């Protein structure tokens, strides 16, 4: 049996808040990056639930786009993190504050 749409929305909201909390609590760039991925997928879940309950295909199309963009973003983001680590031997965001005014 399929749970009601509200359950999907609640799950998406919980996942999103967890992602936000993880982003703010963790000081490690790699973990923060994973938190961002969690937030993205929370959004995907909400889109899919809405597409199903409204009976429209656009939501699924958007999710496909988001997955594509997230893949590209993951490639570039990870590459940047690797480069930062090579240069600075750290990925702690508190130590990366050269742009302080």
């Amino acid at each position: 049996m399929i749970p009601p749409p509200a359950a999907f929305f609640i799950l998406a909201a919980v996942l999103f808040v967890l992602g936000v909390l993880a982003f703010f609590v963790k000081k490690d760039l790699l973990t923060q990056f994973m938190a961002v991925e969690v937030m993205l997928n929370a959004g995907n879940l909400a889109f899919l639930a809405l597409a199903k309950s409204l009976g429209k295909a656009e939501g699924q199309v958007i999710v496909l786009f988001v997955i594509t963009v997230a893949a590209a973003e993951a490639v570039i983001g990870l590459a940047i993190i690797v480069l930062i680590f090579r240069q600075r031997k750290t990925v702690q965001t508190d130590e990366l504050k050269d742009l302080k005014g």
Partner: protein
Amino acid sequence: MAELFWLIPLIPGASALLLVLFGAKLSRRWVAWQACSAVFLSFLLSSAAFAHLVRLPPGAPGLTKTLFAWISSGPFTSPIAFAFDHLTAVMTLVVTGVGLLIHVYSTAYMAEDRSHARYFAHLNLFTFFMLVLVMASDLVLMFVGWEGVGLCSYLLIGFWFERPAAAKAGMKAFVVNRVGDAAFILGILFLLANVGGSSFSLINKAAGGGLLPSGLMTLVAILLFIGATGKSAQIPLYVWLPDAMEGPTPVSALIHAATMVTAGVYMVCRLSGLYAASGPASTVVAWIGAATALFAAAMALVQNDIKKVLAYSTISQIGYMFLGCGVGAYAAGMFHLVTHAFFKSLLFLAAGSVIHALAGEQDMRRMGGLRKHLPVTFPVFLVGALAISGVPFLSGFFSKDAILTGAFAGGQYALWGAGLLGAVLTAFYMFRLVYMTFYGKERTAMEPGHSIHESPRAMTIPLVILAAFSALAGYVGLPVFFGEKADLFGRYLASSVKSGSPHLAVPTEGLLVLLATASALLGIALAFVFYRRTPALPSRLASRFPGVYRLLVGKYYIDEVYDAVVVRPLVRGAEKVYERFDLKVIDGALNGSAAAAGLAGKGLNFLQSGLVRDYALAFLIGAITFLGFLLL
């Protein structure tokens, strides 16, 4: 070829542009050839246009050419339009003809100067602006030329700008001319507002037809004349011209004797309809002219610098021209302008040849006895001196006589007397110069190795040509007792300027001519007594009348008076403004706004922490706020 007349000013203009841009890279020979040929081409075109003009039936308008409108604002338009009528033809031929001779002379005189190309660029630029001035068919375009020649005058007076005196003299000329130009602009604006256009034919027609109130006409005429007193070095704005002698001598000959300084006379003749319609303005012109003629001649009596004598003489002779215009004898004024252009540029160039021979010496007290050393310069200088003194049958005699006759015929006996007295002074100071320079003992202070030598041919040939014109140019305007039709020049100009006073009876005119001749000869005789027979006499006279002598040597202390009354209060006022307004208000406002921006930056500095989390927090708060607004 006559229809190409509008190229007359543009050829020297184009040449000047080329010389300004590429002059430094061109060879001296090329620069000199280019500058001279540009003026020569203009001269050829002017001659062709002149030949075309004299073949036109009487009463026909001259050539005109409108290139384009450069100001078009509501009902007012000002075209770049050139006109070539009888009056313009005279000026154009003088500017290009005398200008060509002076260009040729300069090739030798300036041959060794460091800034050879700059000199010819500016000389060509001057020719361009002067031709724009005389060929403009409306007052606004004429003003462009008027300012342009002022600029070139400044550039060429200060040509040797590394000499402080030259830089200062250039500045003085420019600033004094500004004073006159301010009045000139006011006059133009009054005309634009009341006539509705600026073309000369329109202005003269409006003035002649009585369309303008007479008070307004007088005001405009006097405002324009104040501009002319600046450009043409008349009382009260003549003070810049003697200082302008700091420039190279050919420049003094071209700009400060033959052409630019006579622009004011040309302007008055061009607007003769306006001046003839305004009695009070004409009276002012005549009296200023007469006063300047006497006043400057008196100062020339005591100068020891050969060029300064000629400078005061120029001021005095231009005074004569204005005297002629003021009494209604416009053609006579123009006639004197032409003959003066010949003999005064001759005198300046010959003086330049003397200076050249003496390796830069200008003080007549260290000259003397040069007659033997300068076999070409001396006779041509003598011709020039005789011509300017008004000795019979040379050009100056006829033109000065035409002016004096005009004054007498107009019933202005006081002006006539002043002119006659001025003629005595003129002959006296010119022959004082001749005796001090060419006669007597040699007083040169040259080092033994340097011998006094005659100038090269490029300098002496222009001198000889000018001497021929100085001697013969007068025969185009003979007095009335050679017949009713003898005054070719006056009849030629009759279509362009207002005709003069009625002719006098032949015996009266004969008497006037005799008196003028007598006054010239008297001046020469006095100079002979003072500077040749008993050379001690001048110093005895000076110690007898120390007050008069000191007044003349001090140039009436006009420079000092201007300095105290105008220059120093202005400078002091400007300094006060600088201290109180510039430093405090303007600089304060600028520094204040800069400091405010700095403070704001410091205040907001904390926002930029460099921590990603802080930015993300701000982002989150913003997103929540935005969503809150959408939902609620």
